[in-house]
């Protein structure tokens, strides 16, 4: 980027065939990604899926093992970090502790010899409503304030591409919501390209125009949040982005408009357009909030799938909705979210119940059922350690 000028608009980012291997493991495997200029793009994935590595590659803090990175059409693969038209809001904020808030924000402007760096830094601080704390040192601010300073420090440079590395991680829920909306507003206002990395699916869905779900260094699915949520392509996406009820069965018949799957002896219909695979053993699913809970067997009708009867094993009330767990013999546990239209739960534990849903709400996944477990293990090392300890303790008690 030229010294002394700002980027006029956001630039698009292209990753072509990116590979990143660290000694002993592959963080990113053949990643192709295009982020259109001016969009708010979220990379969503569990910890260790390679999303932060992707961000660091774009910022130039890591070098790809193979592949090319293009920003605004220019190949920057070999360009040094400080020459890239990119700024990062770091997860740890990385605010310079020996400088005041104002000096921190003016740092990038001064390095690029922008006229009136301090004036622009004040402007940046006003944008995040922290101008009154300009003379403080970062460690005198709260976590949320530090996060906003980090945001201002990156934003004042008007980079063609702004990278956000889980920047809202340290905030409490209320501040988080507020910052999400503010970030979105800022992005709309300045028209820059935002690449946001997060493991929080709600955050990705509320803020981004496009979400790419990353798993083990590969993109599982990419698209608008609604699209990803309503029509997940894989079991990973179906369970990482919200919750899903998944059933496995063989396709018994398929007409032009829909396929019929045999789930534990019950015929379940899925629209062909919403199913990835149309023959053999398939996994189909439906979102818990799309299910209706019945205490009497519902009348079978065209366009409705029915499962049941099953027994209600758990009822948990969460204010807006109630979550029911229903154990259906042969099918497994089905989760139902029901709006609290009346006061409190309508069904109690142990009751017999049926579920039904509109055929149009079912979806068919691309995974081969035998090849994939229903849930990807996503346990962190601490949990594994605890499990091992419990197992050992149990063994000791037995002997």
């Amino acid at each position, binding site marked *: 980027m030229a010294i002394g000028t700002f980027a006029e608009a956001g630039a698009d980012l292209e990753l072509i065939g990116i590979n990143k291997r660290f000694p002993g493991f592959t963080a990113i495997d053949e990643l192709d990604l295009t982020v259109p200029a001016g969009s708010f793009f979220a990379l969503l994935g569990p910890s260790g899926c390679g999303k932060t590595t992707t961000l660091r590659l774009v910022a130039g803090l890591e070098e790809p093992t193979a592949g090319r990175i293009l920003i605004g059409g220019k190949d920057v693969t070999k360009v040094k970090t400080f020459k890239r038209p*990119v700024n990062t809001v770091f997860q740890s904020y990385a605010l310079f*502790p*020996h400088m005041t808030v104002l000096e921190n924000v003016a740092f990038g402007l001064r390095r*690029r010899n922008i006229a009136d760096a301090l004036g622009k830094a004040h402007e940046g601080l006003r944008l995040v409503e922290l101008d009154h704390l300009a003379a403080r040192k970062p460690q005198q601010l709260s976590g949320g304030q530090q996060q906003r300073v980090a945001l201002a*420090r990156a934003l004042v440079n008007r980079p063609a591409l702004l990278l956000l590395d889980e920047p809202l991680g340290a905030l409490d829920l209320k501040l988080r919501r507020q910052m999400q909306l503010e970030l979105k507003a800022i992005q709309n206002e300045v028209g820059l390209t935002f690449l946001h990395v997060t493991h929080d699916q709600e955050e990705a869905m509320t803020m981004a125009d496009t979400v790419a779900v990353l798993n083990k260094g590969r993109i599982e699915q990419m698209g608008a949040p609604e699209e990803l949520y309503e029509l997940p392509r894989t079991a990973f996406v179906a369970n990482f982005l919200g919750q899903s009820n998944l059933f496995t069965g063989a396709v018994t018949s398929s007409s032009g408009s829909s396929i019929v799957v045999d789930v534990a002896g019950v015929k379940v219909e899925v629209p062909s357009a919403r199913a990835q695979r149309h023959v053999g053993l398939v996994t189909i699913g439906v979102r818990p909030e799309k299910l209706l809970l019945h205490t009497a067997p519902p009348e079978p009708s065209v366009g409705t799938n029915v499962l049941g009867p099953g027994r209600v094993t758990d009822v948990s009330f969460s204010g807006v909705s109630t979550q029911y767990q229903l154990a259906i013999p042969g099918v497994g546990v089905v989760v139902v979210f029901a709006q609290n239209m009346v006061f409190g739960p309508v069904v109690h534990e142990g009751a017999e119940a049926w579920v039904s849903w509109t055929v149009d709400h079912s979806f068919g996944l691309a995974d081969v059922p035998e090849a994939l477990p229903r849930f990807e293990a996503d346990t962190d090392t601490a949990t594994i350690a605890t499990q091992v300890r419990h197992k050992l303790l149990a063994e000791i008690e037995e002997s």
Partner: protein
Amino acid sequence: MAFAAFGSSTAPVEQAPRRRSGIALILLAPGLAYLALFFLTPLISLVITSVQAPVEFGDVGQFQNAFKIENYFAVVQDYWPQFLRSFGYALVATFFALIISYPLAYFIGVTARPWPLAQAILLTLVIAPFFISFLLRTFAWKQLMAEDTPFVQGLKALSILAPDANLVGTPFAVIFGLTYNFIPFMTLPIYVTLERLDTRYLEAGNDLYAGPLSTFLRVTLPLSLPGIVSGTLLTFIPAAGDYINASSSFLGSASTSMIGNVIEANFIDLLDYPVAAALSVLLMGIILLIVGLYVRRVGTEDLL
């Protein structure tokens, strides 16, 4: 760290208000008694000696209490070149020690982070000279710099050194010795601050358009300032009062004698105790002044 001795009392340390208790006083008592006995008493004795006058018709080395403030004017008049030399040599040696130690400390504390074993070995090597007496090591350098060694012969062959010149006894040899002897005192405190340096700040600097040099000057250097201040103080203060390197028995000669050598000569050979005491008091005063100004100028209280 030694720096704490000069630490600013102005630094606002946030701590929970504590209950006043007699236990603190009891715990402090041995330390205070030690300081009173072994620091305050000799200091007062030194100041008293520094204004003593010779006993009339007495032997050499006999003095009586007086208030002979002229002693101070006399020592400044007689020994100002040695004073200048002391601080000049100490300053140059501190500078070179810093230039050599900083990259070394950076390498051990930052570059070698992925290899803890290498870090440990390198740190041991920095401390290793302490296993051999300071005197022996300095004496070894005298031998290495002696006239007939291959090193000196080589310098002469390359015409870097004149054919009839010596290394031992020159300011070069003295400053070399001072620099060599104080490098560990410079390296260790700088290492301690660099070892804690969060490299994410350097990444942030790079991300904000600062190149390697700019990032070093504006991020790394300010963040390692406490170590630099400690290291320079730990080097400069003892170097200014040093009398081994500059002594003619080691690397120096009469023309390189520093204030420490003059104090030693007056005390041990000439038995002129008031002059030796006045020189000592003056040396201490000047060092305190320089250090005070330095610490205030650098203003590190924010960083500690």
